C-alpha cells in the first residue's frame, strides 16, 4: 500500500504546489511510483507547474462523479514514466468533492502508487480538510513570515483534529518544510530564523528551501524544479527533503545562496 502525503499550509502562495511538484518529481526519480493530486477545485494550478496543462482531459471531480475512470484521468509525465498527475476541475463547484468520493479515489490510488501526494488548497474549508483527511503524513509548508507561521499553527491544529488518523486516536505525522528562506536576511535579523519557526510550531523539520530565482524559472517552463535543474540550490534541498520523507536520515543543512557583494565586502557571516 502506498503512502498518502498532504502538502498543506493554510496560507496561500507559500509554495504548496511548487513543493508538491518538486517532491513528487524527486521521489519519482528514485523509481518509485508517484501520483500528485490537485485538490484545488476551481483554481487548479498543479497541471501548469507540471507542464501538463494542455493534456488535461478528465479530472478528480469527473472520477468522483463516475464520469471517467481513474486510469482515464491520470496524466503520465512526459519526462518521468513513474510520475502521474490527477488534475483538479477548473469549472466544477467544489461541493462536488464529496468525502465518500475522495475516500474511494485515494484508496484506489494507494493500491497502485507508492506515493499519493495531495496538493491542498489554501484556507481551512472543506477542500483543505478533505485533502488532509486520508493522509499518513503531512508536509506543512511555511514561509519565515508572521502570517504564514500563524496559519501553519492553525493547520497543525486541524491535522490533529480532522484527519482520519487523529480521529482513530493515532498520532498524525507532521513535518515542516520551510520555503523561501533567505539565510543572509535571517542572519542579519531581518527574517525569522529556522530555529525561531521550529520553536514556535514545534514539529520536526523536513527541509529548508532557499528563496531562489530557479523556482520561478522552473514554473515558467512548466517543470518541477527538481527536473528543471537538478543541481540548483532549491532542487538539491527538495531532493534531500524527499529522501527524508522516504525514511533516509539526511543531515539538515541551511542552504546558502550566493552572498551579495555588500556582504562580501563587510564580511558578514552567513549560517
Amino acid at each position: 500500500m502506498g503512502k498518502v502525503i498532504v502538502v498543506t499550509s493554510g496560507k496561500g502562495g507559500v509554495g504548496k504546489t511548487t513543493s508538491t511538484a518538486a517532491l513528487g518529481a524527486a521521489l519519482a526519480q528514485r523509481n518509485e511510483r508517484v501520483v500528485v493530486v490537485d485538490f484545488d477545485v476551481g483554481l487548479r494550478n498543479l497541471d501548469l507547474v507540471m507542464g501538463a496543462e494542455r493534456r488535461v482531459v478528465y479530472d478528480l471531480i469527473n472520477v468522483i462523479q463516475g464520469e471517467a475512470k481513474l486510469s482515464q484521468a491520470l496524466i503520465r509525465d512526459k519526462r518521468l514514466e513513474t510520475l502521474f498527475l490527477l488534475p483538479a476541475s477548473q469549472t466544477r463547484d467544489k461541493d462536488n468533492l464529496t468525502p465518500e468520493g475522495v475516500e474511494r479515489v485515494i484508496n484506489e490510488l494507494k493500491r497502485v502508487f507508492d506515493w499519493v501526494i495531495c496538493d491542498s488548497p489554501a484556507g481551512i474549508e472543506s477542500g483543505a480538510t478533505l485533502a488532509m483527511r486520508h493522509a499518513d503524513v503531512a508536509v506543512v509548508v511555511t514561509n519565515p513570515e508572521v502570517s504564514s507561521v500563524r496559519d501553519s499553527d492553525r493547520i497543525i491544529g486541524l491535522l490533529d483534529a480532522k484527519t482520519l488518523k487523529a480521529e482513530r486516536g493515532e498520532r498524525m505525522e507532521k513535518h515542516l518544510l520551510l520555503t523561501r528562506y533567505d539565510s543572509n536576511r535571517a542572519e542579519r535579523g531581518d527574517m525569522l530564523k529556522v530555529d525561531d519557526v521550529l520553536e514556535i510550531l514545534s514539529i520536526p523539520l523536513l527541509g529548508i528551501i532557499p528563496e531562489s530565482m530557479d523556482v520561478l524559472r522552473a514554473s515558467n517552463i512548466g517543470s518541477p524544479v527538481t527536473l528543471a535543474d537538478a543541481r540548483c540550490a532549491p532542487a538539491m534541498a527538495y531532493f534531500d527533503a524527499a529522501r527524508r520523507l522516504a525514511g533516509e536520515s539526511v543531515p539538515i543543512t541551511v542552504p546558502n545562496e550566493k552572498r551579495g557583494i555588500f556582504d562580501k565586502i563587510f564580511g558578514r557571516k552567513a549560517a
Partner: protein
Amino acid sequence: MSILNLFRKQRSAPMARERLQVLLAHERASSNSDLVAVLREEILAVIAKHVEIDSDKVHIKIDRDENVSILEIDVEIPVAVAAEAA
C-alpha cells in the same frame, strides 16, 4: 559585527518571533471557546438588565499579554438612571 550595524534599523525578526509567541499562546488556548468573548457578552448582558445600554457609550478594550489577558469594559451610565437605582 560590522560598524555599519550601528547605523542600521533595529532588527525586526525578534519582534516577529515575540509577537507570534504571544499570539499563538492565546490562539491555542482559546481555539474552542474564547473565554474573553464569553465574559464580554455576559457582563454586558448583566448590565443591560438594569440599565439601558447605549452601544455608542460602551468601550471595550482587550489587551493580550504573555501571561494575562485584560478585558476592559467601560460603560457610561446616565445620571438619571444611576440616581433612580440608588
